[in-house]
């Protein structure tokens, strides 16, 4: 690097560095605000906050377990639905599809990603929920009703509906990140397999997918991070009831939705503090998911690069 020449250069460099460091500052700002806002609650409820399931603002009893449970289960449902679909689509788009069809599908997926959560929720309330209630849910109940997961009354708004709407939200991100991963697999890999007389699918399975495993896992975790924090659409279809039920037809509640619903109603300090602490928990788990995802994705990138060199 050339040594800085003149005052202008120095000022500009430090200015841009300060702007770039804003991202680091923001991470600390978020952590600090959330910790400060919930310090009383943390002291008052301690570890019980995470392990008890009573959420009673009137009695000032706050346990976050139903929300943690709801977030975990709805995200799990979302992953079960979206991971196979997204990865298969990414494989289709990079390996199997005819060239002319690829770009149009990619553009459509980008448009899906651009639909705001609140609008998906609107559609969820007025279109998806009635349809789920009248057709797939009764059907599921008839077939799997003997398991605890698909028993009990059907309201429409439910954990399952929440999971489905989250799945729709994270389909585009998992698909496009997976697609990037698959595209970055060096062609050498494919050619080697083709040279052995493998079919297109065999090439994909042996050369591409096994090579990209780590990165695809990163894409899935990234999707999980988004799922955990998804707010508006879920809030509109999950039923918002703080309870732990085995049945996926029963309403649930998530960390993000309880903040969205109750924050402005929190009249007492402890109530607000408890909601801040929910925010802290949500921040913690999404940061963990994103850290893991980015590590997987970034180190995947570097292995590919060094792989291409040799």
């Amino acid at each position, binding site marked *: 690097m*050339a040594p800085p*020449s003149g005052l202008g*250069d120095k000022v*500009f*460099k430090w200015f*841009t*560095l300060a*702007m*770039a460091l804003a*991202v*680091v500052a*923001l*991470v600390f*700002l*978020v952590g600090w605000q*959330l910790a*400060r*806002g919930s310090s009383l609650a943390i002291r008052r409820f301690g570890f019980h906050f995470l392990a008890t399931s009573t959420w009673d603002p009137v009695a000032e009893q706050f346990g976050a377990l139903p929300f943690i449970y709801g977030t975990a289960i709805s995200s799990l449902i979302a992953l079960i639905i979206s991971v196979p*679909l997204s990865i*298969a*689509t990414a494989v*289709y788009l990079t390996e199997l*599809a005819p060239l002319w069809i690829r*770009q149009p*599908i990619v*553009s*459509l997926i980008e*448009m899906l990603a*651009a*639909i*705001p*959560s*609140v*609008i998906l*929720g*609107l559609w969820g309330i*007025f279109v998806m929920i009635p349809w789920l209630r009248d057709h797939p849910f009764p059907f599921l109940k008839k077939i799997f009703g003997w398991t605890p997961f698909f028993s009990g009354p059907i309201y429409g708004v439910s954990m399952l509906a929440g999971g489905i709407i989250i799945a*729709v939200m994270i389909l*585009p991100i998992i698909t496009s990140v997976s697609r990037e991963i698959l595209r970055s697999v060096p062609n050498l890999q494919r050619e080697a397999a083709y040279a052995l007389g493998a*079919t297109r*699918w*065999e090439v994909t399975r042996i050369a591409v997918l096994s090579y990209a495993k780590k990165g695809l896992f990163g894409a899935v975790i*990234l999707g999980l991070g988004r799922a955990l*924090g998804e*707010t*508006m659409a879920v809030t*509109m279809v999950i039923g918002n009831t703080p309870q732990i039920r085995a049945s996926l037809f029963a309403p649930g509640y998530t960390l*993000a939705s309880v*903040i*969205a619903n109750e924050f*402005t109603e929190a009249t007492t300090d402890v109530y607000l503090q408890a909601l*801040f602490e929910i*925010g802290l928990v*949500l*921040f913690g788990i*999404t*940061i963990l998911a*994103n850290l893991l995802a*980015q590590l997987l994705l*970034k180190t995947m990138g570097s292995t590919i690069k060094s792989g291409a060199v040799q």
Partner: protein
Amino acid sequence: MKNSHFWRKTKSALASAASFVCALLVIAPLALVFLHLLRSGASAVNWSFFTELPKPVGVAGGGMVNAIAGSFELLGLAALVGVPVGVFGGVYLAEYGTVRGNWLLRFVADVLNGVPSIIWGVVVYGLVVLRFKSFSAYAGGLALGFIMIPLIMRTTEEVLLLVPAGYREASLALGISRWKTIVHIVMKTALKGIVTAILLALARVAGETAPLLFTAFGNRFWNHDLSEPIAALPLQIFSYAISPYDDWHRQAWAGALVLVVTIFFVNILVRFLTRERVARVL
């Protein structure tokens, strides 16, 4: 031998067909949502939707003019925060720094990008609303601005790196200082890409609701004081959607249609203006 070859071919064809079906399933929600938006929203989008304030409960008609205006005001405030920080942070990543340090900054920006948008609402609530004891347009704009920062930073970096090194060399060889080279040559060359990055980030936060719930808060009336609660289109859609009135539901669809069409328009415009390369980064 022949048989197994046939079976392998069939399997390959089956895999293609199955993954094609998956691709259709992935884009199906887009079609379903958009069709319903058109069907339920188009009839409610009329002149008064764009020109009138919401009517009191029980009175039919009215519009969302205040929410539309409020959304633009919020986006303006967000841009004041997100654009300078994002663009010049991106400049640092592309033009200065060390490989290792920039890797770390990029990493942090990408992690920050994954912070749920509702968290920004909570943070700004603690930072601004509690302090000034009022929901306000400033708070809403700040929350959206925070969300824009890592988005714009990463895209700006990408587009600056697309500027060939030859232009930097040519400028430096003229005895133009480094910072002038960056501002007048590199950034000017990449201007279209930077504008694209900003527009895409704006389109992205234009639909955000969660961070506004307890910052901008919403407002059924005109508000010209930025330190007061302000209406926003997504907030209005949300409150109408969960209301019990049919007329409000109709208006929620109308608002949703307007919002989605605007966002799609910006996305398509941007893609039309630039090559795929830039858009893909987001």
